[in-house]
């Protein structure tokens, strides 16, 4: 025993030392290896992050993962919202072999297990694992397995699958490295998506600005084909070969009609009338939401020419169904993606606003022809102002998301809407109220305008702001009427103007502004008319100016006087 102990004694430290050295060497090697691998992880991550195009990003992720752990096969399965494998990007498998297989993996078995468990799965042998569902025929033999989820903003985007490690088996370290890569991949995917989204938005914004401008165009001819403009732009944005705008044949009718058609076979479908039931368009119309089909036609099944994937997107404005936007691709083309559907829906809802706006405009001009004045006024008030206001708010919201030139164009439209609202308010007022002889100031101003307006080439534009009738009374009201009368008669007699505007605004003071685009009143000597207005201003502690218009043309008259302190003291 003792001798053995003695004999053993010198051995012990030596072997301990040896072991320690061995360990140290091993650890050093591991550190070196790990460092090398960390470096390649870094390199791999960088390669992935540098990409902005989503397709390239996905391919790079798989390549990087395969290289990192030296696997024979690698794949990235993208998971659809319903949990199924939507896409399968793979490397290592020759195309010839892929073609022999009945189908690519569908996310059953082991691949599905990674989806379900949401954490890495590492196996030395696939065969024998209870979660494996076996391989499809002609699938290459696979042994070691490593599956790691890829998350984008806490949501599982897909999984990285690696098989057949060339170094025998996947290690804990492999798992950690691929998990790190997956984290980077998630960020890269998100970046790419954001980039994609911003590019999409930009294209979409530009298209929308164009459509809005066309719809709002004062030029009647340009706005007539506004729906055609909508169709054209959508076709380009979502890559459709045929775009139709389908509207109800007449109010309350059961039939739909193709009102606008653009693209392949457009001539053949234009004007076609059909029953909505059993069609994609009909479904979109009835359900009020976007409906997509794999195949089939927007209308009926024996549609000519034959169509591939189709979507129907409803156009609605103010709870009213306006029609359906139908988009089609040729037979065999890829189906519309969710992103396409989103874009078409978003576009449709914005186009609806513009269509509503165009309608409101048409209404307001058409209504002027109708007899029943109070009904017109109510319509203008109830529908037109509300619509214009709502549309304007929406456009302003859109403007906030746009860049420079498009944003300005949309904001110009918003300004135009404000002007329209203010004019309609005056029209409503003029229509609803035909008061007694001693009418309110607004009535008296409108009366003067219509009296003198006949001498002018076009009816002057009249706007009021502030509670003019409530606050401008008695002598001050007389003065305002005198200013409008004299200034308008000057425009009629001296200006040779095309257009003229009258504005009466009240705040702490009443300000009357009359502008025209005529020859201007340069250096003309003041005569009795204008002198009288200056006196009226002075007597009230106000001001009177006559000068050149803001655009450098025509004449601008501005008369102002403070309100009497006891306004409203009971007259």
């Amino acid at each position: 025993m003792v001798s053995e102990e003695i004999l053993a004694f010198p051995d012990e430290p030596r072997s301990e030392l040896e072991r320690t050295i061995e360990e140290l060497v091993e650890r050093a090697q591991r550190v070196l290896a790990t460092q090398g691998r960390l470096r390649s992880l870094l390199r791999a991550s960088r390669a992935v992050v540098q990409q902005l195009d989503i397709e390239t990003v996905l391919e790079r992720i798989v390549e990087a993962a395969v290289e990192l752990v030296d696997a024979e096969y690698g794949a990235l399965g993208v998971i659809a919202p319903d949990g199924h494998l939507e896409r399968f990007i793979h490397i290592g498998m020759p195309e010839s072999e892929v073609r022999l297989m009945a189908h690519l993996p569908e996310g059953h078995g082991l691949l599905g297990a990674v989806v379900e468990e949401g954490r890495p799965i590492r196996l030395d042998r696939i065969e024998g694992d209870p979660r494996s569902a076996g391989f499809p025929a002609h699938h290459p033999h696979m042994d070691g397995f490593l599956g790691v989820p890829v998350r984008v903003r806490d949501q599982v985007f897909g999984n990285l699958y690696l098989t057949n490690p060339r170094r025998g088996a996947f290690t804990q370290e492999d798992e950690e490295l691929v998990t790190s890569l997956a984290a980077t991949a998630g960020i890269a995917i998100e970046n790419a998506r954001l980039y994609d989204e911003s590019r999409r938005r930009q294209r979409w914004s530009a298209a929308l600005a164009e459509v809005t401008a066309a719809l709002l165009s004062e030029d009647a001819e340009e706005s007539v084909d506004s729906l055609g403009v909508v169709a054209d732009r959508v076709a380009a944005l979502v890559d459709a070969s045929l775009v139709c705008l389908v509207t109800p044949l007449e109010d309350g009718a059961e039939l739909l009609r193709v009102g606008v058609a653009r693209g392949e076979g457009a001539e053949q479908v234009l004007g076609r009338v059909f029953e909505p039931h059993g069609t994609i368009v009909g479904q979109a119309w009835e359900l009020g939401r976007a409906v997509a089909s794999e195949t089939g036609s927007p209308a009926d099944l024996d549609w000519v020419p034959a169509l591939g994937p189709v979507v129907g997107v409803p156009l609605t404005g103010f709870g009213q169904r306006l029609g359906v936007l139908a988009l089609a691709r040729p037979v065999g083309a890829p189906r519309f993606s969710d992103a396409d559907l989103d874009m078409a829906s978003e576009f449709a809802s914005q186009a609806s606003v513009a269509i509503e706006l165009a309608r409101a405009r048409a209404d307001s001009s058409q209504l002027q022809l109708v007899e029943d004045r109070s009904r017109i006024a109510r319509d203008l008030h109830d529908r037109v102002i509300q619509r214009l206001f709502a549309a304007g708010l929406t456009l302003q919201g859109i403007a906030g998301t746009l860049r420079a030139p498009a944003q300005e164009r949309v904001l110009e439209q918003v300004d135009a809407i404000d002007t329209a609202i203010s004019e309609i308010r005056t029209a409503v007022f003029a229509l609803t109220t035909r008061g007694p002889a001693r009418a309110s100031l607004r009535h008296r101003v409108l009366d003067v305008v219509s009296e003198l307006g006949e001498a002018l080439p076009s009816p002057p534009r009249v706007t009021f702001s502030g509670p003019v009738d409530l606050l401008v009374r008695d002598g001050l009201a007389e003065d305002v009427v005198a200013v409008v009368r004299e200034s308008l008669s000057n425009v009629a007699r001296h200006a040779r103007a095309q257009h003229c505007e009258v504005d009466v605004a009240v705040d702490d003071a009443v300000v009357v502004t009359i502008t025209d685009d005529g020859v201007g009143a340069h250096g003309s000597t003041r005569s009795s008319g204008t002198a009288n207005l200056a006196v009226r201003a002075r007597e009230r502690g106000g001001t009177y100016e006559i000068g050149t218009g803001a655009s450098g043309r025509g004449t601008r008259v501005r008369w102002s006087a403070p309100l009497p302190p006891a306004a409203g003291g009971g007259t």
Partner: protein
Amino acid sequence: MTRVFLVDDHEVVRRGIAGIIDAEPDLEVVGEAATVRQTLPRVHATRPDVVVLDVRLPDGNGVDLCRAIRSELPEVQCLMLTAHDDDQASYGAVLAGAAGYVLKDIRGQSLLESIRRVARGEKLLRQGVSAQVVADLSAPSGAPAPDLTLRERQVLELIAEGLTNRQIGERLDLAEKTVKNYVSGLLAKLGMERRTQAAVYGASADRRP
């Protein structure tokens, strides 16, 4: 942070206005309603600082609604948002006991500034406007008079002073419900029993000398 509640029957309008308000760091939309019926319980639940309400609502008028809010929750300020013109809106705001009104136009208006001022307790209606409204409605010179009773005239004057229905009841020693009836009768006589847009016309134009 100023808490804002929106009442308008158009979703597009609510969405648009909410977008503008929520973009401001010191303002937030805490609730919305599309009808008179939805409004009171939701305002009770969310306790906003300012209610922005349309005068014209599908199931009633904003004037009554505004008075109901002010009577139950006097600390809540109301701002009328209207498609009417300034004169009509002034009448409406005075009768409703609102702190002010904002016209429905997009860029010209100062909706945000108005909300802030109203939240600070300012009254946006110009001095003299209330008195002028009372004068016009109770003593029209020449135009067909609405024939107000003494009580109705008293109620109208207290409305113009900005008192809530409850406060008017205390002042005149009447039950709040009775005041409410007087207010309804008054509004009816002024042609406001129907939807307000027709109504306020009555006030501003037809009754006008």
